[in-house]
């Protein structure tokens, strides 16, 4: 593991940067609090209209779903297409290329560095929100919790891989903000971040099941709730792993061919 020391060091440095930009981080955090509270009131209204269970979820389960989604959304908030695109377009990646480091692993280290802090803040806020709204469903079985942790880790890798792949469009386009927004919109729908996928009409749910995004929120959240039977859970986490690793490798391939094919601008 000696070769990974450098990436650990870079991850640590990027965690430190979060503290430099603590004002920005705090504003982001406050924004996300408003968002999760709004989601809670929205879904509370829906559930109050239909006392008991709505489809497959009870209200405590739905609350748990929202909290889990909130926590999963709280990681890697500083890694986006816009920043990577700017680095590519303005030729800053040249600096990285002149170093004995792997470009993708460096990006991964930098994206992961802040996770302990992001996670700690999200857990604290999540606990307060959950308390205020009368508690959430806890995993019925410790095995669910363990599987959830695996699934959540895969969800984070998947998020990185997707953003990394999408960022590579910076080699061909300058409109990274549009690209980033488009990815966010598609992700919010098909990951189940806005509405659990079970509430989708069949055709839309079918589409979601062949896309990688469900692995970002839906799969770990359902694993937490123990909403899927054993084989289904294994299949879904396996699918998640295949997407996460597949896209990670695909990103490497994209980067390599892009670097070969395209000039590094600026200078």
């Amino acid at each position, binding site marked *: 593991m*000696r070769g990974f*020391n*450098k990436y*650990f*060091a*870079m991850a640590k*440095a990027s965690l*430190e*940067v979060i503290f*430099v*930009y603590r004002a920005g981080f705090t504003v982001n955090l406050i924004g996300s609090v408003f968002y999760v509270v709004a989601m809670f009131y929205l879904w509370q209204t829906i559930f109050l209209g239909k006392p008991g269970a709505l489809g497959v979820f009870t209200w405590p389960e739905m609350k748990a779903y929202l909290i889990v989604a909130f926590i999963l959304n709280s990681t890697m908030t500083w890694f986006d297409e816009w920043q990577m695109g700017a680095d590519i377009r303005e*030729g*800053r990646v*040249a*600096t990285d*290329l*002149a*170093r*004995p*480091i*792997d470009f993708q692993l460096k990006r991964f280290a930098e994206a992961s560095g802040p996770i302990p802090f992001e996670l700690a803040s999200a857990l604290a806020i999540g606990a307060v929100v959950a308390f205020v709204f009368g508690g959430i469903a806890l995993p019925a079985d410790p095995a669910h919790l363990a599987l959830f942790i695996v699934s959540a880790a895969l969800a984070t890798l998947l998020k990185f891989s997707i953003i990394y792949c999408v960022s590579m469009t910076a080699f061909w386009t300058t409109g990274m903000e549009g690209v980033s927004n488009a990815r966010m919109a598609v992700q919010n729908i098909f990951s189940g971040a806005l509405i659990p996928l079970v509430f989708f009409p069949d055709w839309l749910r079918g589409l979601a099941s062949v896309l990688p995004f469900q692995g970002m929120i839906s799969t770990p959240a359902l694993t937490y709730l123990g909403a899927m039977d054993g084989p289904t859970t294994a299949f879904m986490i396996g699918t998640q792993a295949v997407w996460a690793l597949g896209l990670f490798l695909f990103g490497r391939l994209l980067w390599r061919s892009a*670097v*070969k094919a395209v*000039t*590094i601008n600026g*200078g």
Partner: protein
Amino acid sequence: MSSMPLIEARGLTKKFRQAVKEPGLVGSLKHFFTRQYRDKMAVDHIDLSVEAGESVAYLGPNGAGKSTTIKMLTGILVPTEGSLIVDGLVPYEKRQQNARNIGVVFGQRTTLWWDIPVIESFNLARDMYEIPVKRYKQNLAEFTELLGLAEFMNVPAGKVSLGQRMRADLCMALLHDPKMLYLDEPTIGLDIAVKDSIRKFIRRLVDERGTTVMLTTHDLGDIEDICNRIVIIDSGRIIHDGDLGALKDNYARDRVIHFQLARPPESMAAICAGLPACETTSDDGLRLSVRFDRFQYAAGEIAAAVMPHVEVIDFHIDEPEVEDLIRKVYLGQLSLTAPESTAEATESAVATGA
């Protein structure tokens, strides 16, 4: 192998594909549907070999292909054609391994982490290059002293001055004892004192550590203080490769001395008469410029010839700019030692597309 040069490039070429777009909305629309491209030869079949311990100035006007060459040498860009070996490695094939042997400083771009204290960037370099702790401490202590880094060691790179940043960038590039140091305009925008200390430092590296240096610059001072050899590139081709003394004797003979006068001179003709073979001009009556050949006159002689005719308040001498030197070389104003013949023969074999 010890007999091999540190850098060995043969027929090194980089072609870029540039989008060709007609002006205006119609042009943009046309471009959207039928993209047209044109190949631009950034580096055109250059041959270059650099021995260990040399300090080479790599010069040329903007867009001549300097940075492109450096980027190929560092493994950042893949050459379109030709062969390239740096310290026994093909840089773009073994990019990471090559990166361990080289240090790179871009004058216009920092390699330090912007938001964290300078010392922590150095610590990251230690981890990235896996520098043995003892060696790291030695180097850090030495560079800190030589470059005067102590006063801003704990300040984030984004908050230090340009001169401080450049000094820290140099340290950053050298902590892992690279054999080869690439400097891309290392003194751009710096004040005289900082320029001077940076040049002395680099010269010392070459002399004491035997580091091989290749630098691009637009500042003659950099070359004079650091380099033994000058390579000039223009439009992607090497048009001069030789030592500095010869180049200066041949191309930098002219000096211009400027006088600030108290009153307009009574007779320009009288001044000119005293200075045959010089070009004497006076633009607004209170300024007088004399262009002279430094092998023919000393600056003092010019001053002595001018003083009796006018009252001089102030004067200064223009040093020739590298830009002028290069311009002269490629305008062919002065005879050249024949540059190495470029590989014209292989040109017909250029495969198009890729």
